[in-house]
């Protein structure tokens, strides 16, 4: 089984290399280690996520041993949003980033209100009452998050989760394609795409759309699996990815192929520096990346200035 994988690794389809940057050089694109046309790729990816939608969160936990939660928390801390921020979470499917955003903004807002109250020690009862009234209905401080995903099933799961966990305020769900967002220019403060840009067929288009919908001064954040440079760790990681993950997929979600695709798509995704170059090409400034776990995951950040 291992030798078979090695052979697959070594004999990558020719078109895949050209298509690595997400540019459609001819109709050849990569779907994992296979070579497909652009349309086929979109369809296949849609099917993958349709199949995994219900078990998406469970599989995330079991594949990454729960570490994906830490990664997403780190992303949120890096963003450090203040109340009043408008977030667009693309490929946000089941809403992990959106819920974290709401929690973060809520706690920042609490601290803000507490600080305000501490300063105003000499208010009359009437004034205190009024300030409570005003702030009670503004626990998020006008922050909002729009979750956009191309896949209806993922959005459905996300909405159910939101209902289950009690998130209703400041949250909206939109069906949309990252390569062609259904939003106006200059709308959002922050654009995030967590573990989603790998599945976009034309990454350059997605980056351009990100640039378009962000306000001047807005921030682009991308959390994605990336390239491990440490050779020992890289071998262990490959071993784990190709041997364990598809098996987990079969056992837990009953879907070997989708998780095979997942692992292969990680290998096909451009490494940190290349993605940084692509982001700069789209027009972002101060583009930077931070490796988490030695490069297993990387957070890229850029500003529209």
């Amino acid at each position: 089984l291992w030798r078979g994988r090695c052979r697959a690794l070594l004999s990558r389809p020719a078109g895949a290399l050209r298509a690595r940057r997400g540019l459609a050089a001819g109709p050849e694109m990569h779907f994992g280690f296979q070579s497909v046309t652009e349309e086929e790729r979109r369809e296949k990816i849609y099917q993958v996520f349709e199949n995994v939608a219900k078990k998406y969160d469970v599989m995330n936990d079991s594949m990454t041993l729960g570490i994906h939660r830490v990664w997403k928390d780190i992303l949120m801390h890096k963003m450090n949003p203040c109340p009043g921020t408008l977030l667009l979470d693309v490929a946000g499917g089941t809403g992990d980033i959106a819920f974290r955003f709401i929690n973060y903004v809520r706690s920042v807002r609490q601290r803000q209100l507490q600080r305000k109250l501490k300063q105003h020690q000499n208010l009359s009862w009437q004034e205190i009452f009024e300030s409570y009234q005003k702030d009670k209905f503004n626990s998020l401080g006008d922050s909002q998050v729009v979750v956009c995903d191309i896949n209806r099933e993922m959005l459905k799961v996300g909405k159910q989760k939101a209902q289950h966990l009690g998130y209703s305020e400041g949250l909206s769900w939109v069906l949309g394609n990252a390569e062609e967002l259904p939003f106006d220019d200059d709308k959002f403060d922050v654009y995030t795409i967590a573990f989603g840009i790998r599945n976009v067929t034309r990454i350059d288009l997605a980056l351009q759309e990100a640039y378009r919908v962000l306000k001047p001064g807005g921030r682009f954040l991308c959390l994605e699996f990336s390239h491990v440079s440490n050779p020992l760790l890289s071998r262990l990681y490959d071993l784990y990815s190709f041997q364990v993950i598809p098996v987990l997929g079969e056992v837990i979600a009953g879907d070997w192929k989708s998780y095979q695709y997942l692992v292969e798509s990680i290998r096909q995704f451009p490494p940190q520096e290349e993605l940084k170059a692509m982001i700069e090409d789209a027009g972002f400034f101060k583009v930077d990346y931070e490796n988490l776990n030695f490069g297993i995951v990387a957070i890229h950040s850029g500003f529209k200035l």
Partner: protein
Amino acid sequence: VRCQQYPPLRALQASAVLGRASDEHKKEPLASSSQQHFDSPPAGHQPEEKPQGPHPSYTGQGGQESEDYESEEQLQHRILTAALEFVPEHGWTAEAIAEGAKTLGLSVAAAGLFHSDGSELILHFVSECNTKLSKLLKKEQKLVQLGEAEKKPIDEFLRDAVEARLRMLIPYIEKWPQALSVLLLPRNIPSSLNLLTSMIDDIWHYAGDQSTDFNWYTRRAVLTGIYNTTELVMMQDSSPGFQDTWRFLENRVADAMAMSSTASQVQSTGEAVVQGLMGAAVTVSNAETSRAVR
């Protein structure tokens, strides 16, 4: 192998909110990492001027220049300056920077350009204060040179300079202790120390200090001590108009002056003693030789 085309150098374009300057003046593009990466702007972006300056090998895109170019650093500078007015309310935090960015028409996410503990904001403020102080001292010096003002004695000069500098802290005095603690973070110590020493150097320069011996160091050390202690006294001073602080400053400067005159007194006394001993030794040796000769 990456296929590379060489689209024109892209400079930082200002959108309407970032302000425009006159058409002729074009600021130089910032030499940041983004300078290495090019792109052909998507349709809808304004045409760029043919870039000049240090990169003559890149071909421009033609078209007229219609917007001003601003470097990343200048934009950051503007955001920090705008953020200062929100410091009394929010402290030296990313929130103040976010509010500042909002007033410039930028998104609040621009606060992500800086550290979340507000280090850059504080360092920016300190450097601005130092620049203001320099300008003030230079103006006073010019007045003295033109004969329109009297040259102040050293102690009064130092006192006024330190007082002027510390008065700049008054609008932010409540949050200044927080700023001091951030300035002492290991990460910030090189920059904050640099700013402090250059400010003290400036004051001595305008005070007319031209020493090239060890006095240079002692003078700066003394003034740094005076400045720091006065700053700390100011932190917890609640007297009207900070009278106690200025009185403290006056006393410390007087002490320093007295110390220096005592030092020179000690030195001259020492010299006199040594000369006396030498004279005595010469006299004794002369007496010996004359006795020997006899």
